[in-house]
């Protein structure tokens, strides 16, 4: 109980800190995140630029706060939509069985063999490289894990006495799934959602680092690292800040997931 609470608390606090910083960016930003100021390029952290500036003199803190929107949006889409789609497909497969189940599961196997990252790269080839394409591909890649999880849980729960009891008093399939099954498989699904969020943030950052994710002028954490790599020697803060932001976010969701899993 203690460890569960500790994990939930620490994870929650980390996530809150990132979310608040990103949300505050909608109210006001310290500087213009895309404003180029060549006279102030590669400045170390100071009173005017709390985290310093990059190679074009752009304020790093402002860019981090705006770039966080991309990361949190991709994470939310992957965890939220992935959970919703996977849950719908997985429970229907588990409840109905037969050909529908078989077909969906083979499809999930196929998507599984394909690392989500390769899927995103393929999507970027067909459509233009960009944040939306990356987000869609990352979300699509997370669906199979949720689908498997909800299907296996449905199959397990289907045999349990209280589902049998519910069926015996004449509850319909929809009611059984929504009222009796869903609350009982929420925990593993939420754990998975937490993990998927962290993985999506990492995947988006990787794609943006490679130059096939979010495109300039929109700042993103991965892209900031790509820009800063060449100046790592003269401006280490430009490398440290975005990397730390990614790691901090991923850490928060991983710890939260751990807490949710513990009893």
């Amino acid at each position, binding site marked *: 109980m203690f460890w569960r609470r500790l994990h939930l608390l620490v994870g929650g606090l980390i996530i809150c800190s990132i979310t608040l910083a990103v949300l505050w960016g909608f109210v006001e930003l310290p500087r213009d995140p895309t404003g180029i100021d060549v006279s102030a390029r590669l400045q170390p952290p100071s009173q005017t630029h709390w985290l310093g500036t990059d190679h074009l003199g752009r304020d790093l803190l402002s860019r981090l706060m705006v770039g966080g929107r991309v990361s949190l949006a991709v994470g939310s889409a992957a965890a939220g939509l992935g959970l919703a789609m996977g849950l719908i497909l997985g429970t229907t497969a588990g409840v109905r069985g037969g050909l529908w189940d078989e077909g969906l599961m083979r499809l999930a196997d*196929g998507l599984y*063999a394909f*690392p989500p990252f390769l899927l995103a790269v393929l999507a970027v080839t067909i459509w233009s490289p960009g944040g939306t394409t990356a987000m869609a591909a990352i979300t699509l890649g997370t669906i199979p894990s949720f689908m498997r999880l909800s299907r296996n849980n449905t199959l397990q729960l289907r045999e349990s006495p209280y589902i049998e009891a519910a069926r015996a008093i004449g509850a319909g399939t929809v009611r059984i799934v929504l009222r009796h099954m869903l609350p009982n498989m929420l925990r593993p699904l939420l754990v998975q959602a937490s993990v998927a969020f962290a993985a999506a943030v990492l995947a988006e950052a*990787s794609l943006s*680092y490679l130059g096939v994710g979010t495109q300039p002028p929109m700042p993103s954490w991965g892209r900031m690292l790509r820009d800063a790599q060449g100046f790592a020697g003269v401006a280490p803060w430009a490398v440290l800040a975005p990397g730390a932001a990614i*790691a901090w976010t*991923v850490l928060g969701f991983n710890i939260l997931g751990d807490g949710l899993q513990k009893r």
Partner: protein
Amino acid sequence: MRFVLVKTIGLVAAVWLIATLTYMALYVLPGDPAVLVLGTEGDPARLESLRQELGLHQPLHARYLQWLGDLVRLEFGTSIRYARPVGDLIAAALPITLMLAMLAVAAALTLAVPLGLYTAIGHLNPLRVAISLAAHLGMAVPSFWLGILLIQWLAVDKGLLPSAGFRTPGEEGWAAALGSLVLPVLTLALPRAAILTRMVRASMAGVLQEDYMRTAHSKGLPKAQVYVRHGLRNAALNISTTAAIQLTQLLAGTIVVEQVFALPGLGRLLLAAVLQRDLPLVQGLVVIGAAMIVLFHYIFDVLLSLMDPRIRFD
């Protein structure tokens, strides 16, 4: 034997399915692949010659069968940008990626198994807490960030290792070649090692609860034998399943790491092909990459079934 046969059919089917899906995604979904390659403002004459080259005037099923036949003979066509056979380009880049991936798996397991085992047995102490925290951090750190930091620290500041590029063993000797792979392997292996450490600890913690562990202890076996022979061997199934999934992730991770360290492997080739819309090259690489992953899982499944007979009857 039956198990191996079923798995083999599954392997061929999976590779065929992936290849077909890739073909659909690249040549059928976009409408006109020639426009995809050259852009909508492409010169009409060049568009036409590219359509000829890709055989787009034939009906779809003829094109597909032709392509499938080529694939079986391992002919992937000619790269549009490099004007060289896709097979040659892949063959040149493959050894680097394979070496990188193998060394990274070996490094990750070498780190993770002892650390995981140590954290699982015995009570909490500062060292065990430190290992757990480090594993948590290792899982959160993006590999490209780790790579940039390692280059800055060990290559630029300390000058211990080369910062980027690959030294070919033929020209500069094996020592230089392996030296140029040390940092990329570390970058790739550390995050995987973090996940595996946690996995080893979790699996071992489960096995430690078993009755046979108590029996092994009480019949007076030495501790090392109890934990390794009785504990680790039973946890191995769980651990190796995760390790297999991690290897799949690792192959995708090589794309990023090869970019950080400017290594001319499959990942870098794929990225260049994607950015230049070199369809035959993208397709060849995706099919080869996915086939490698499927083949690896196949070998793994068969080996596992030899190790653990329970799997064959599943």
